[in-house]
């Protein structure tokens, strides 16, 4: 094992989310167990002629449902609304105060010791005004944009608030302000792995003692014309227009890409000492984090899943778990894997290969599923919501299914918990779960999340 300095243990004390299947953890979780999918036609803009005309949209939110005074957040981006709502849920559950009841929100924490690490995406492009401005500046003969004409149109059409809200540190800025975090503050944007990385690095900040408590997670939406266009051009999206509710089919031989989702997941993390001192209840413990780069191609995953493998091995190493270790019942110590499982041809086969390369013959004994089959792909926010799914697995002893897995791909031959949830309480529930997230460009991150079992780890 890698030699590491003595460090703090880190526990999760609050979770919150906004997803296409519910704007709180309980509702989302029940939807996942019911095997519901959140997919429908895009209503945010006219996508009728797009080869992918559907997505997993989250509901519109009224921040007054979460904050006594939402007035400071007028004009914030859709992604930031998701984040603020999720963070309020997590904050409240952690016993730090209910932002909807200002008198109770006097938290007992030192603001300089409260940090925040998000993996949040950029805000939503003001597409209509942006296009209008670009076309106003377009010189068709020279095939170039006339910058002076463009600027004139831009100052007429575009809004300062909408432009500034697109900066990818703004969600962080609003959440920090809402909850009074003045400690270490970061946003990372490593595509589809961002919020897993944020949770991992937030954990490392706590381990080292650079903060007592961290808000960690992510928020994102790319459901706007250019976001959808970008992924269509990359041929990453499902185009199953004739069967929208069942479009996402991870690990199935007929999978044809992911479905874009949107939303947020937020966690309150703290050092065990800090949680105990203020009498908070640990929901779970983060025991391992691994991070790696494929260093292969910006468009393709390393075919052996080498980067994914390194990321998992490093996370297991930190958790003190060997890939061959088993528990008293002879089960591998990892009881559940939340797969990245996008439903693209490439990801699912290579992720499967990587897991086999890590766990060898035992890989088939570890149940794993892709909740993206129901939630869609929340891009930067996906990892945070999937970490919350792992916490729920640990708490309930039930594993969510991989929906729409009707025609298994011969190269995807592991146990993906097809179509029906699985209750594993009779064999001891879930003590430890592993969650994978991989990003376009080759950045990989893995978390190991464990049942909190008191002092005796």
């Amino acid at each position, binding site marked *: 094992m*890698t030699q*590491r*300095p003595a460090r703090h243990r880190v526990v999760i004390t609050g979770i919150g989310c906004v997803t296409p299947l519910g704007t709180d953890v309980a509702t989302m979780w029940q939807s996942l167990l019911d095997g519901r999918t959140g997919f429908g036609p895009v209503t945010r803009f*006219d*996508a*009728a*002629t*797009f*080869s992918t005309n559907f997505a997993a949209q989250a509901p519109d939110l009224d921040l007054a449902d979460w904050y006594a005074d939402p007035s*400071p957040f007028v004009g914030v981006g859709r992604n930031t609304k998701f984040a603020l709502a999720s963070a309020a849920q997590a904050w409240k559950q952690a016993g730090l105060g209910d932002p909807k009841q200002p008198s109770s929100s006097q938290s007992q924490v030192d603001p*300089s010791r409260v940090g925040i690490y998000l993996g949040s995406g*950029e805000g939503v492009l003001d597409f209509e005004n942006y296009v209008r401005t*670009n*076309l106003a*500046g377009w010189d068709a003969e020279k095939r*170039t*944009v006339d*910058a002076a004409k463009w*600027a*004139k149109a*831009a100052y007429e059409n*575009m809004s300062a608030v909408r432009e*500034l809200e*697109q*900066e*990818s*540190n*703004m969600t*962080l*800025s609003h959440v*920090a*302000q809402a909850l009074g975090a003045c*400690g*270490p*503050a970061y*946003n*990372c*944007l*490593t*595509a589809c792995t961002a919020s897993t990385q944020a949770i991992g*690095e937030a954990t490392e*900040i706590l*381990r080292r003692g650079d903060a007592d408590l961290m808000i960690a997670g992510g928020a994102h939406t790319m459901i706007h*014309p250019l976001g959808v266009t970008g992924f*269509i051009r*990359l*041929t990453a999206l499902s185009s199953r227009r004739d069967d929208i509710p069942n479009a996402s089919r991870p690990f199935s031989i007929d999978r044809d890409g992911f479905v874009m989702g949107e939303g947020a997941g937020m966690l309150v993390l703290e050092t065990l000492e800090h949680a105990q001192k203020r009498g908070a209840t640990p929901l779970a413990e983060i025991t391992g984090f691994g*991070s*790696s*780069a*494929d*260093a*292969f*191609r910006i468009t393709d995953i390393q075919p052996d899943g*080498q*980067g994914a493998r390194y990321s998992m091995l490093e996370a297991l190493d930190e958790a003190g778990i060997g890939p061959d270790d088993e528990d008293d019942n002879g089960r591998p110590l990892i009881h559940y894997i939340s797969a990245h499982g996008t439903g693209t041809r490439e990801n699912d086969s290579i992720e499967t290969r990587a897991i086999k390369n890590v766990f060898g013959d035992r890989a088939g004994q570890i149940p794993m599923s892709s909740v993206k089959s129901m939630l869609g792909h929340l891009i930067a926010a996906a990892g945070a919501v999937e970490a919350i799914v792992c916490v729920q697995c640990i708490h309930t002893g039930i594993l969510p299914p991989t929906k729409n897995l009707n025609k298994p791909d011969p190269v995807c031959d592991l146990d993906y918990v097809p179509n029906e949830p699985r209750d594993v309480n009779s064999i001891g529930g879930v003590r430890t779960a592993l969650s994978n997230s991989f990003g*376009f*460009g*080759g*950045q990989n991150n893995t978390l190991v999340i464990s049942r909190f079992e008191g002092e005796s780890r």
Partner: protein
Amino acid sequence: MDRSVVISGVGAVTAFGVGIEPLWEGLLAGSSCLRPISRFDPSGFPSRLAAEVHDFSARDFVPKTYRKAVKVMARDIELAVASAKCAIEDAGLSTKGCPATDNVEPTYPSRRIGCHIGAGLIAAELDELTSALATAVDDDGVFSLEKWGDVEGDGAMGNLQPLWLLKYLPNMLSCHVTIIHDAQGPSNTITCAEASGILSVGESLRVIQRNDADLCFSGGAENKINEMGMLRMDFAKRLAPTGDETDGAKIVRPFDPNTPGGLLGEGGGILMLELESSARARDANIYARVSGFGAGHSPRSDDAAERSRGLQYAIQSAIKDAGLTPADIDAILPHASGVPHMDAEEIAALRTVFGDRLNDIPLVTITPNIGDTMAGHGSIAIGVGAMCVRKRTLPARLNAGTPAPDLNAGPADVRDAPINHMLICTNAQGGQNGAVVLSAATESPQ
């Protein structure tokens, strides 16, 4: 005990040119690169000066086999890729894509090399996008989503190159660098405006300290000198109106109570952070030890003192992390954006930490020379700081205004300065703050 980390290579692309040497020479000479924008016609914007990088082609800085990839690199990515190559060469290291001599093995195993490169919100190139958008207008000249869609196979969106999206993802700065140099360790992309560079260096430091890597590419790069970038920065009230002025050094005057705002530069800075024991074992040319790091978030307030708490925490944490007290700091390189509310916040934080001593501590400023390079700023600043520590020299200081008399921030010539410990810090639009302490590498590690 933490594993000690040093800077063993500095790479930069700034308006002074490619590499740390031209930047350092330019600073010693007290020159400024803030000139009229030449890349596009800026007449529609109130701010028309910036520090552009001229005569730069990313193709010259990637391996031959990787040249094809340049067409999916936004300018920000190009700046990062070139800076990374400079940094590796400066450090005397070999990687897969950048061997010091033919057929030499890489100095470090791939898995022990991390990469943390901060980035901003990258704007799509308008000509590229609009030439596609223009094929989807209806007979009235109005853009039609119906024509844009591709379901019939011939939609206008097909006129965008398939990899269009990847050209503008902020993580591609790191990803291209990891691919070129086969860096398979932890890799991250921090997007916290001007704090991105310092926060990335901080993360590399922690990654090496906790034994997840021995070497990291670390820094940031950004180019906001384009129509969208200028618009957004003007909307943020960051940019000084320039009128008929053609010399930006007369405009950017940090800590002058009447400063009219800042000006943009484009730039990248990548540092090689290396485990000190390994660097010493290979007899590396060590610039400085990265002895402390801290971060913090600013509460929103109209009161600069209240707002400065985030930066204050960052600075105090960094000094404490280095095992020092404020009395040990010999020089400071702050953001010095020249934006009135940001300057005020920065001085409030420094005053709280350093008290009356601040009057005498030299402040090093680089924004009058190369503009505000945003996500590139922090790591370029650390690169300059590393040169100050190594050369025991402070560069000349440009300031055409009248900084507050109780600050050591007015015009100055090059001077010798035996610096043991130097603070580099920044605030950022949006409220993030980072601080790093560099220490002379001759001292034994803490």
